[in-house]
């Protein structure tokens, strides 16, 4: 099956989209950029192809029973990938114990690590049997939070220190993330099928998906780290063009696009064919970009995805003076010390970010109908609410489009450019 690939190497996450020859989306993949763009691109691409193969299985799974089985298989596959990484993490941590822990203390640490990892494994197995619950897509986040929680419990009873356990984890998680692991479809589909009891209704579909040749005819890269892609120049497109074209593909009546990414914010005007006619970006300072929210989440000890819902609980918005990423913590602590509530501060922060984006939109030529909001921050309900309010205040009623897959807009645009190259 002929296909094309678009890769968007963002400063925070790396996304890949696989398109069929017809332009239909076959699969999407995402991973954290982990300061290693080469690997992140490979992982996102692999994930997108896994997703594509599950899409093929889904297409062939005619009955409702089969469709449910595919969902279960998908979750089993993700679990197998997780366990594969967990095993490697444990192996590396045990090796690290031999290297850096004094001989007398080693057995205690070996046992403690074994215990923590087996508890994580049990939790994951349990989780699989429960209804699906939202959490980060990335091994680093989910394994990390479980490790911290369980290491604290285990440390005391095993006569080891929590700090040392965390030190072992920190040292090894980077290695797990940065070595090419066998996480591809063929590596784990057998185990996943086995885990769900090798259902007969999926056998043919899985075999067909495994056998399908998905060699991309062309790949186009974009995003902050695009220069790191081992592609010739004609395979690299600017993020501005990709977000413009991607937004156009998702919502063909789009005329204005706003993308709030990790490192930069872009206000883009496009014509009826998705061709960019003008744009504005923030300058080198990443104030008010996605990264700012990341720092705020760290300061508040929250997950990035928890910020928006908490801000939505606000009853009064606190005015924020600075969206400077460097001073984010200072601003936050000052407001807390003045007795402001966390949710009210967060509501103010979201509004401040959006105000900065509004200024870029005005510089780029305003907000035309229809307006499409893309990038990771478009997943945040508080940011979306602020956008809706401010667009209406400044430009009147506008159709505002936000796709559930808005984070993939740039990669989709890149894949569409790849498709044009083929045709």
């Amino acid at each position, binding site marked *: 099956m002929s296909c094309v690939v678009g890769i968007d190497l963002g400063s925070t996450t790396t996304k890949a989209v696989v398109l069929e020859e017809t332009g239909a989306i076959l699969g999407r993949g995402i991973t954290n950029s982990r300061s290693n763009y080469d690997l992140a691109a490979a992982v996102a691409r692999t994930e997108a192809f896994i997703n594509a193969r599950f899409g093929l299985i889904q297409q062939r799974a005619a009955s409702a029973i089969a469709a449910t089985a595919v969902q279960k298989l998908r979750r089993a596959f993700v679990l197998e990938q997780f366990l594969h990484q967990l095993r490697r993490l444990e192996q590396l941590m045990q090796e690290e114990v031999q290297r850096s822990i004094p001989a007398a203390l080693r057995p205690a640490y070996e046992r403690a690590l074994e215990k923590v990892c087996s508890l994580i494994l049990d939790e994951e197995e349990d989780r699989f049997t429960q209804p699906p619950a939202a959490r980060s897509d990335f091994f680093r986040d989910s394994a990390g939070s479980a490790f911290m929680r369980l290491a604290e419990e285990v440390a005391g009873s095993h006569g080891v220190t929590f700090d040392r356990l965390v030190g072992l984890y920190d040292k090894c998680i980077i290695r797990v993330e940065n070595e090419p692991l066998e996480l591809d479809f063929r590596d784990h589909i057998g185990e996943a099928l086995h885990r769900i009891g090798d259902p007969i209704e999926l056998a043919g579909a899985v075999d067909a998906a495994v056998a399908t040749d998905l060699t991309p005819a062309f790949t186009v890269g974009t995003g902050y780290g695009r220069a790191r892609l081992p592609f010739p120049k004609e395979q690299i497109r*600017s993020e501005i*063009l990709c977000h413009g074209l991607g937004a156009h593909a998702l919502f063909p009546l789009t005329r204005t696009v706003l993308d709030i990414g990790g490192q*930069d914010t872009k206000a883009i005007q496009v014509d009826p064919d998705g*061709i960019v006619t*003008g744009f504005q*970006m923030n300058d080198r300072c990443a104030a008010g970009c996605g990264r700012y929210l990341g720092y705020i989440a760290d300061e508040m000890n929250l997950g990035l995805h928890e910020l928006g819902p908490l801000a939505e609980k606000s009853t009064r918005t606190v005015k924020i003076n600075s969206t400077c990423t460097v001073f984010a913590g200072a601003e936050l602590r000052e407001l807390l010390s003045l007795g402001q509530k966390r949710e009210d501060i967060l509501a103010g922060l979201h509004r401040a970010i959006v105000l900065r984006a509004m200024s870029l939109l005005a510089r780029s030529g305003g907000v*035309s109908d229809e307006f499409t909001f893309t990038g990771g921050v478009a997943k945040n309900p508080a940011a979306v609410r602020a956008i809706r309010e401010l667009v209406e205040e400044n430009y009147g009623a506008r159709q505002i489009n936000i796709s559930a897959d808005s984070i993939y807009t740039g990669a989709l645009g890149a894949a569409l450019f790849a498709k044009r190259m083929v045709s």
Partner: protein
Amino acid sequence: MAQKEILKDRSMILQKEMIARHFERLEQAPANHEPVVYTFVPGNLTELIRSFGALPVLPEINALQSGMRKLSGDYIAEAERAGHSEDVCAYVKCDIGMVKSGNIGPSGTKLPKPDLLLLSYTGCYTFMKWFELLREEYDCPAVFFHVPYQGDGKLEPEHREYMIRQLREQVIPALEKATGRAYDEEKLRENLRLSALAEDDLVAVLQSGKLKPSPIDGYFGTVYYVGPIFSAFRGTEEGVEYYRALREEVYARAAAGLGPIVPDGSLDDQRYRLVVEGPPSWTHFRDFWKMFTDEKAVVVASTYTKVGGTYDFGFRHNPDDPLGTLADYCSGCYTNLNLPSRIEMISRYIREYEADGFVINSIKSCNSFSAGQLMILREVEKRTGVPGAFIESDLVDPRYFSQANIKNRLESYFQMIESRRQGSGTGATVASDPLTSAAVA
């Protein structure tokens, strides 16, 4: 081919030699009892200064040269240690830092103290503060020549008279006192005559940007070309000789159908023709230039290369009206023009040089240049139908140059022009909302 390379080399060698000679002479000036006058590029009165046998020093040029030689970061840090704020004009801090670090000029020779600070242009108020600081530093006389701003886009006759009166009653007496010589109008006329000769040749060079391919880069290459005429060499035989050689060299390139020499060789295959507004980033000059040449973009005209005089619209120094012509010159420098005049000039360049686009480099620490540039962008887009790009950096503060950010914007911009060129067969479209850009493919 070999001959052309020699010709190319000739103007560069000439320039290098004349600048080196000038700085050596400056170093020896105290020993040789040659008076020294510090002044600024916009509105510089070089012919008048030289008619008194004095040598000009241009602190801005020293600052930008320090930027190009990667010295400005340390100088700025030195000035900030002395209490100058991060937001102050980076040229000023670079100069103050250089003075405080021993006043060794960009070519490695020591700069002499000024006998007079001649503030001959006032459109930038920072210049006034700059010379106030230098007056404190050197404890030397300063003379203030007020140049009225062209708020209505033209020089009023009474403003011209006012300037001539200031030259006669304040500037000339101050120069007489500082140099110990009497005003010699014949000498001034002779200098002005030489200026006009060099200006003719410079304009011919600038206008060669209309050719396809353009034999010059009208921004990155041209900041070198305007060096002598913007600094110490207007109204000198050396200046005349330099511009004659440069013109021959550029004409030879044009005749051979060659583009300009750029960091990676000769840019003969030119994919984009651009107009640029605003000064370059001196600290990353080559990197910045390469962002254009890597995309095969040539700059055909720029406004920054007119800060020391807008000769390409007809002005020449006139020896028959020595003080009047100096007034005309000072008031017509690009930095003294109002926004409508700047918009008209950029639009004219885009039309006359058949540009595909224009780029505004907005300078963080220069409000005088940067204020209003977004309005310029919108209006020029509207008038010409050509898309503009907006980037931000600084003159000589290396901290404000973000390679990834600027490259990202420029690449996006070039790809945007390209995709608009290719279009999709649907032809021109106009955004329906009056708030959006009216620029169309």
